[in-house]
């Protein structure tokens, strides 16, 4: 399996008063293409911090992190932004859709950043909205959608540019059980059919059940790393 993420002796500190708070300590991990993995652990264990570093939204204090052949510590702000726009799809707990945009425009946004032509955009958006079953809602605004529908739009927005890596931070925290399962099944289907890599940060049992690899963090350190054998 091709390795897409390598983390070596990575530590993350935050300044706190006159001292510092260590959020992650001596992390060593690797992720391969097509993985459906999750960082699990209690609040404050460092899941989101690790996810943010892998998503180039934050930088580690020590150690090396390579994401999709880019050493994140060496990326400047512009290069990091380009990596995010081209190869990384984010899914947030609160969906983070742009409120004044329609479903179509929200999904279109990453393609505009990639300077895709109008016809390319239209084709890709219709395809993805059809795939997630929201084509009839393309002119609705986020305020007119349910939580589950919003999260599906957020997935479509992350997916439309066909990223190599999905980073999902508590994607089901605001959803009921039924919507959570629907969303997770959708993500699993994407992982299966498109070989897209998923990395979750979660403490939600509903999500954990779906994970193929569970990395447990405790007090900023890797406590366990368990691969679940998939049936069939």
């Amino acid at each position, binding site marked *: 399996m091709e390795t897409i993420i390598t983390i070596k002796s990575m530590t993350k500190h935050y300044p706190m008063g006159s001292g510092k708070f260590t959020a992650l300590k001596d992390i060593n991990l690797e992720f391969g293409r097509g993985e459906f993995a999750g960082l699990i652990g209690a609040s404050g264990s460092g899941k989101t911090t690790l996810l*943010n570093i892998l998503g180039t939204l934050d930088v580690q204090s020590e150690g090396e992190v390579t994401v999709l052949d880019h050493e994140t510590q060496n990326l400047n702000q512009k290069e990091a*932004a380009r990596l995010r726009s081209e190869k990384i799809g*984010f899914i947030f707990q609160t969906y983070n859709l742009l409120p004044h945009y329609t479903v179509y425009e929200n999904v279109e946004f990453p393609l505009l950043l990639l300077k895709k032509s109008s016809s390319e955009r239209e084709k890709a958006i219709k395809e993805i909205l059809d795939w997630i079953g929201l084509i009839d809602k393309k002119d609705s605004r986020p305020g007119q959608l349910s939580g589950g529908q919003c999260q599906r739009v957020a997935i479509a927005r992350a997916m439309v540019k066909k990223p190599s890596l999905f980073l999902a931070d508590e994607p089901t925290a605001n959803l009921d059980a039924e919507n959570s399962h629907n969303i997770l099944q959708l993500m699993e289907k994407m992982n299966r059919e498109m070989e897209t890599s998923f990395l979750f940060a979660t403490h939600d049992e509903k999500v954990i059940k779906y994970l193929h690899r569970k990395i447990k963090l405790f007090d900023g350190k890797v406590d366990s790393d368990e691969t679940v054998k998939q049936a069939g």
Partner: protein
Amino acid sequence: MLLRMALKNFFGGGLRSLLNVFVLSLAYIGIIGMQGIGENMRRSVFESIIAEEVGGGHIRHVAYDPYDPFIEEESFAPVPDDIKELQREGVATPLLIISGIAYPQRRMQSVTLRGIEPEQEILSLPSRKLRGDFAAVPVFIGRRMQRITGLSEGDTFMVRWRDRQGAFDARQMQVASISTIYSQRLDAGNIWLPLEDLRSMMKAEDAATLLVLSPDDRIEIAPLLESEEWTFKSQDELTADLRELTMMMDIELYIFYFIFLSLALISVFDTQILSLFRRRKEMGTLMALGLTRRQLIRLFTLESALYAIFAVVAAAIYGTSILLLFQKYGISMPALDDFGIPGITDAIYPYYSPTLIPVTIVIVVAVVIIVSYIPTRKIAKLRPTDALRGKWS
């Protein structure tokens, strides 16, 4: 792409955007209106005072004091031959100014009698109205003088004066014309009559108090002033007090300008600050999706620039008619008229110069961009992770 996003956010802002656009459009209209009034004041004050009184400068009798209400009999003299040459060339016109007492409507009033050549073309005064046959000495007066005296065209009244020998004399005069005289000091208390009539009344042949030079010709004066009886006052000297006056007016107008602009800018600044705090999560999301901080700064600044641009449209829609109405009917200013500011009649008609509107638009848009950029610079220090959590770094 950023413009499209900015437009989207602008229209998505709804009432907030509308309010900003309205406040900014009021600023445009206020600034253009005030500057229009200022421009008119500057133009009318200078133009009318030069056209009616100053011309290209004065050659004055040394004893003449325009601020002395009781003009002395000795403040005029026969015009020397070399200066008279200017008259013949048509580049100077003489005025004889003496004080007298008029008895309009059986009332007594101190007046200044001003003798002017009916054929002169140097001063923009209705001297030609003095030509023709009249039952008495023809005179013209201004509208302020008409209000004071209650005289109408065709009315006759008595004027008394003291001649060179000190003897009092009197003559009947007839109002040939009542005209608009912009300069208050040439209007209220002034009676204009043919120069030769006044000379004959004063028994002062060829006499003049001053000669007004044509503003269009450059005349070498120094060699003409060998006589110690005459002195030259340049246009600059004669308009020095006016320049100070218009400078004061300009300062007052700039204060209004500043107030209007400040109100608009406070509104934009407030909105921008509020927007930055309210939309932190959105900023984080945009960064996560691949927007750089610089693009974010440009986006937020562009949104504010849109307020200024749409305000131009709004001001054009509802402000054009207001400004044109002001221009047509003027703004009543009887108080200013009473102050005796030269060139100001009882109403001010704003003048919108061709540069006024584009310059105002450019200034307001530029200042709005600067003011909205100041809080937006905070984004440069914003960490995406903090923004996503709705916090500032």
